[in-house]
């Protein structure tokens, strides 16, 4: 089977496992000092300044707790037509991430459990790509 095309493959990937598309994992990083961050980068640790071998890739689960959400009514960038919902999720693995909710009609409240899935999008050139979006955890 062909791998699916991801919109931002440097930020997330398919967790090898059941179903297509599979559940995503986030491409985070960990520093020798113990700091876990997202996304992975090699410039240097934001907490202690270490670089090089001190920084290693660390796959992160998308499971976490909702801190906040906002239904965006106005957005100047035409490539992101409003309305859409932004969620802020504290991952169980440490970092706090912000991105889109898969379904705007989904009723969510701070404190509830969240997870992410890969959602298919139609690009302008007609190609189908998958992007990571959050959903309420079942």
């Amino acid at each position, binding site marked *: 089977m062909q791998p699916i095309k991801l919109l931002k493959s440097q930020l997330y990937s398919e967790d090898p496992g059941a179903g297509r598309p599979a559940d995503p994992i986030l491409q985070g990083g960990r520093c020798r000092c113990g700091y876990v961050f997202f996304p992975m980068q090699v410039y240097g640790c934001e907490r202690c300044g270490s670089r090089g071998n001190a920084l290693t890739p660390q796959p992160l689960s998308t499971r976490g707790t909702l801190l906040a*959400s906002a239904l965006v009514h106005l*957005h100047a960038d035409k490539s992101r037509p409003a309305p*859409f919902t932004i969620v802020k999720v504290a991952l169980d693995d440490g970092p706090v*991430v912000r991105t889109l909710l898969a379904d705007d009609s989904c009723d969510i409240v*701070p404190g509830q459990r969240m997870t992410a899935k890969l959602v298919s999008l139609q690009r302008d050139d007609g190609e189908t790509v998958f992007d990571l979006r959050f959903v309420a955890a079942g």
Partner: protein
Amino acid sequence: MARTLNELRPVYVVGIGWHRYQNPGETPYVALGLTAIREALADARIEWPAVESSYVATALLGMASGRQMLRHLGASGAPLVHIENASASGSTAFRHACIEVASGISDVALAIGVDKRNPVRRSDTGIDHLADDAIVPFTHFALLTNEYASRHRVPVDDIARVAVKNHRNGAKNPNAQRQQERTLAEVLGGKKVSGSLTALQCTPVGEGAAAVIVASDEGIRRHGINPDRAVRVTASVGRSERVYPPGVGFDAALTRETVELALAEAKRSAHELDIIELHDAFTVEELHYIESIGLCPEGHGIAMLKEGALDIGGRCAVNPSGGLIAMGHPIGPTGVGQIGEIVMQLRGEAGPRQHRDALVGLAHMVGVGAVCYVHILERCR
């Protein structure tokens, strides 16, 4: 051993001026800036050649715009530098003008903020994000509004009351971009922007200018400036964001640590503050920051607001100018304009906006969350 500004020689604000903050228009930035500088010179009763150094705060005008403005005052050959530090550009320019005078390098210096609304260009860091292009400032603060309301179990409609107070103050300020009182119903009924934020709960970015002249005792003597109208700068602190525990709001955490340093430098406590001008680009920010400053415990900001404690004439007048929500936020000028408002209040020259017996004022700005600048000013006795 490093020293604070307050341990160097005394610095005073001796002149303030504005070009009204307004909706984007055809006025060239040169005209905006010159209006503010000439008003500040007239306020100090000095002439342009007395200014030994200029700090030009601008975020959106492009490279080296200051010289094209200052040359019309008579090119004196004095040094000038441009400062860009996001929303805190003006506060940063003010700090460096103060440092120059406090150090003894100059006796009289100018901080001038001037801007027009131009597209914001952010450089590519080489690190991608999930959807940062979808999270503009009003959505960042819509998320914080949702979080604040949920954590402290307060209705979002109460958070909007910050806008009612600040529009009321702005209505009395001839330099404010928005000069109209608004009811809570008007604030809540306006155009929806993001989350529970409506247009009247968000700053209107426009254009304008603000200028402040600072001087040493020597500068005041040499130029015959009236010392009774001079306002002393007793603290100046700049900080940048650190790594905070997950879920801790960095804007508020950074504000807390910056204010703590400033209060210690001025040997003051939060309860001694009569005036606060703070970065209320969005309503929820005022609650976060008064709590970070220490006016009240976390989650108690709404109660203070509702009992009128933050009004002009209340326990501490917060954003008597109208704040960013009503006075406006033309970026470069904003932090300089805050200093001007506090100086007016401490001199007792704020007219219908005057807060009684104002002795101590604090100015606070954050810049894209990442930097925070705090100044404390005091009436000379």
